[in-house]
């Protein structure tokens, strides 16, 4: 009889064995609010943009006013006008360069988060022994209450691993 029980147990295992590792799905559409790093980055970019807009405004307004005044003078001082126009152009070029630096720093920070997301997906896959972790965009349909949805765990791991990302601006 014990042989029968062992045989039954073994056949039970063989029934269970075909169940394969699951495929998990994560939804990253809310990453800019759910990832603390990305939310922080967004706030930093916003602050930098405001600073950039303010930084050169007083000088530009003063020079443009001066240029306007010179244009109305008779006789017009062409050399002085040109000098001021050149100063305006230089400031605008600097502002443009600063914006490019900011855009570059933003790209670098986003790449850092992307890399962390890829690593977190690998961790998630390993800890659940999943066959794959798919982005929701890679799927055609996911049942809303599907146990395959691992978004919460992904953000938990991501925020542990990368709570903040630095916006590293190059010197312009």
């Amino acid at each position: 009889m014990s042989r029968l029980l062992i045989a039954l147990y073994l056949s039970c295992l063989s029934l269970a064995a075909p169940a394969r590792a699951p495929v998990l799905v994560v939804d990253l559409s809310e990453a800019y609010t759910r990832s603390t790093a990305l939310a922080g980055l967004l706030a930093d970019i916003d602050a930098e943009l405001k600073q950039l807009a303010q930084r050169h405004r007083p000088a530009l307004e003063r020079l443009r006013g001066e240029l306007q005044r010179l244009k109305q003078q008779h006789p017009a001082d062409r050399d002085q006008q040109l000098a001021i126009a050149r100063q305006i152009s230089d400031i605008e070029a600097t502002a443009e360069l600063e914006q490019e630096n900011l855009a570059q720093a933003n790209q670098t920070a986003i790449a850092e988060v992307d890399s962390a997301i890829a690593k977190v997906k690998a961790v998630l896959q390993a800890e659940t022994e999943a066959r794959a972790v798919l982005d929701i965009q890679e799927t055609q349909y996911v049942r809303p209450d599907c146990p395959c949805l691992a978004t919460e765990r992904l953000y938990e791991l991501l925020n542990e691993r990368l709570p903040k990302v630095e916006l590293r601006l190059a010197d312009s």
Partner: protein
Amino acid sequence: MNRRHLPGTKTCRRLAISVIACLSTSAAWASDAWVVLTVDAAYLESGMPLYAKIAEQAALAQQDVAGERKSEIELARDLRQSEVLTALPEAIGEVARAADADLVLDRAVARRVGELTARDVTAEVERILVAQFSQLPLEPGT
């Protein structure tokens, strides 16, 4: 018959417990694997004869008309194709819900993740879209 070879009450109980344990173990394992279906997304998005039929409808409507009316028909054709594409996710969802599925993947993605035994429901999705759109007339200018 020798009584020694007949299973006793105690053994029967053990056997019953084993069967229950076996069934519950299988159920627990089975719950780890979701119900996955596949579709041929490229075919549904651009290869279905339904799109050719819409184009044919537009070509027929464009015969003997000119200028602005022709452009209106072209626009109506593009709009109808967009409507089909917009209805596609809902049609996939409908089939998935009817099958009590957890996930629907494109065939190529399914292959990539090793989901090779999933049932393909492309034809079912196509049937829904055909039923919804194949008999609708093009309505240029609306």
